[in-house]
């Protein structure tokens, strides 16, 4: 009985406190709350997204005392849809930065957020309907494939035998492979085989082991992703064939960037597809409130080639990715 009473008392006090805070908040000049909704850190790349979102929050809140960020992470598309509702109804956000778990299921929830008068920035995965978002920030998958293909083509002098390890069968993977194939079209660069390694180290290791058993000569490997690349490196090392080939990954994982920085012959370059794009999106969304210039439209990040010369600017030793 007593515990119930205490609980009730606690509730009342909290309610009183919250309303007091609310009032004092309203008394201060114009403030903005920006909601950030991202997938939970279930694998390396999203881990990087989480890290960079937190870093950007710290940096921007210090820079602009009137702006507050609230970050929520979701484990599934359904959870993220709930998060969006909560951000609007409970946190009263003025702007939303969302990296959708999946494009299809989240298009409608984001539309509803937009309809409540919130400025919407969509990151990385585009919605399935046009005209909802105010701002779109994304990497360029097609470009990632193209840049990788061009590097391999150039480095092999237009001829050679290569193997490709693909990601999880998705639009992202298709776009990358398409860009890659366009880049090597018309050259004598011959793709021996393409298999899915699902952006996973273990799969990368096993698929590469089998490639090495199957093909006597491989001039280059396009691993498309840095996690796959790490598995590939081990398989090549095991087979003692480091001299024969080089590997091109993608994303910008710190371990790989470090190798590029150190001039590793096996991994001479990397192609950027940075999880830090969430920070870019947060920066731009803040500009919508503080800048006198318009912030609208699309902001597509380049996928530059990371070489030994420029690797340092992409190296974040504290990031989990």
């Amino acid at each position: 009985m007593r515990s119930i009473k205490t609980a009730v008392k606690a509730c009342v006090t909290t309610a009183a406190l919250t309303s007091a805070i609310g009032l004092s908040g309203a008394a201060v000049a114009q403030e903005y709350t920006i909601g950030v909704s991202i997938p939970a850190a279930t694998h390396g790349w999203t881990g990087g997204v989480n890290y960079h979102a937190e870093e950007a929050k710290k940096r921007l809140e210090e820079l602009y005392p009137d702006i507050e960020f609230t970050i929520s992470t979701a484990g599934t598309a359904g959870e993220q849809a709930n998060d969006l509702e909560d951000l609007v109804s409970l946190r009263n956000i003025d702007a939303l930065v969302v990296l959708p778990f999946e494009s299809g299921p989240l298009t409608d929830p984001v539309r509803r957020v937009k309809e409540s008068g919130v400025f919407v920035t969509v990151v990385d995965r585009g919605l399935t309907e046009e005209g909802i978002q105010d701002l779109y920030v994304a990497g360029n998958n097609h470009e990632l494939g193209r840049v990788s293909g061009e590097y391999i083509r150039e480095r092999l002098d237009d001829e050679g035998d290569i193997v490709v390890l693909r990601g999880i069968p998705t639009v992202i993977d298709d776009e990358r492979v398409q860009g890659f194939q366009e880049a090597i079209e018309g050259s004598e660069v011959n793709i021996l085989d393409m298999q899915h390694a699902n952006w996973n180290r273990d799969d990368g290791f096993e698929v590469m082991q089998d490639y090495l058993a199957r093909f006597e000569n491989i001039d280059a490997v396009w691993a498309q992703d840095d996690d796959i690349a790490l598995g590939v490196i081990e398989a090549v090392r095991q087979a003692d064939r480091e001299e024969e080939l080089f590997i091109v990954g993608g994303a910008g994982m710190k371990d790989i960037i470090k190798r590029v920085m150190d001039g590793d012959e096996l991994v001479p370059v990397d192609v950027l597809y940075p999880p830090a794009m969430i920070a870019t999106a947060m920066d731009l969304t803040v500009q919508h409130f503080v800048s006198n210039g318009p912030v609208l439209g699309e902001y597509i990040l380049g996928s530059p080639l990371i070489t030994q010369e420029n690797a340092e600017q992409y190296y974040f030793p504290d990031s989990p990715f």
Partner: protein
Amino acid sequence: MSSVMANNKTTNKAANKMITQKGFAIDLKTWGPFVALVALGLLGVLINPAFLGLDNLSNMLTRSAFIGIIAIGATFVITAGGLDLSVGAMAAFIAGVMIILMNSLVEQFGAGWTTILLGIGASLLLGICAGFINGIVTTKGKIEAFIVTLGTMGIYRSLVTYLSDGGTLTLDWAVRDIYRPVYYGSFLGITIPVWVFLAVAVIGYILLNYTRFGRYCFAIGSNEKVAEYSAIHVDRVKTLTYMLQGVCVALATIIYVPRLGSASGATGVLWELEAIAAVIIGGTMLKGGHGRIWGTVVGAIMLTMIGNILNLTDAISNYLNGTVQGIIIIVAVYLQRASWRKTGP
């Protein structure tokens, strides 16, 4: 593509012939998994002669060691009428803790075998504890193993994600260089993981078939009530099977960590299903009461072999890999069960 299909047909025909011949029917119960393995091997050779290369065979067997060792533990759990869905997540969690521990021990003990042995010890201890928790909650808590291990699966999976901040835990490179031979090294031309796999299989075989503990597993799996009335400590034996499973997971992790020197939320995903599939392909019954260690070994090798063969050919669309795997698994189990329907298990 057409030659592949033709091969499938002939192997099926050959297998059917064996079933119809009297006397063979009983043998097929024992030898079914082996027959399927040989058939699959032949298919591999026909698809690509590189399949029989020494390197390829060695790679494949070494790879199958993880699932194989875990599946031997699962054979005990399933034979005693239980189920453990947490093994994949448990492996990832143990790998994560092991890496963190070894990285922090480097300062104190330096990058040497002391550090590695402490890591290995911690791994075994964690495995035993994790198995004990699964066992005790299932038996004393009287909760279905499916629910308990589904719960612990979620717990371990999220713990490893938490430990790695959603990224990847990487083993100190100096430690890794010393630890590396545990996966890549070999003895008498056979890699260390295969030796471990073999040793675990032999011990498992003796334990299941020639000890009182093994007979209790069979008895409990056949009929738990009867076993209890026969004065068998059902709870204790069942908990022991989960602890054995934990040890097997720890052993698999010990040889997994030196392979890539890393653990993340994506480590060991779906290993539980592969382990259970290996057990069932091998002739153990999912409802318990009947277990076969060598069948499990063959089942684990077969599962790895399917993936390997699919990587050695581009005749089959990558998108259909899952279909081929599914068909082969079902056919393999059908081959040995076909005889059971006639003679009874």
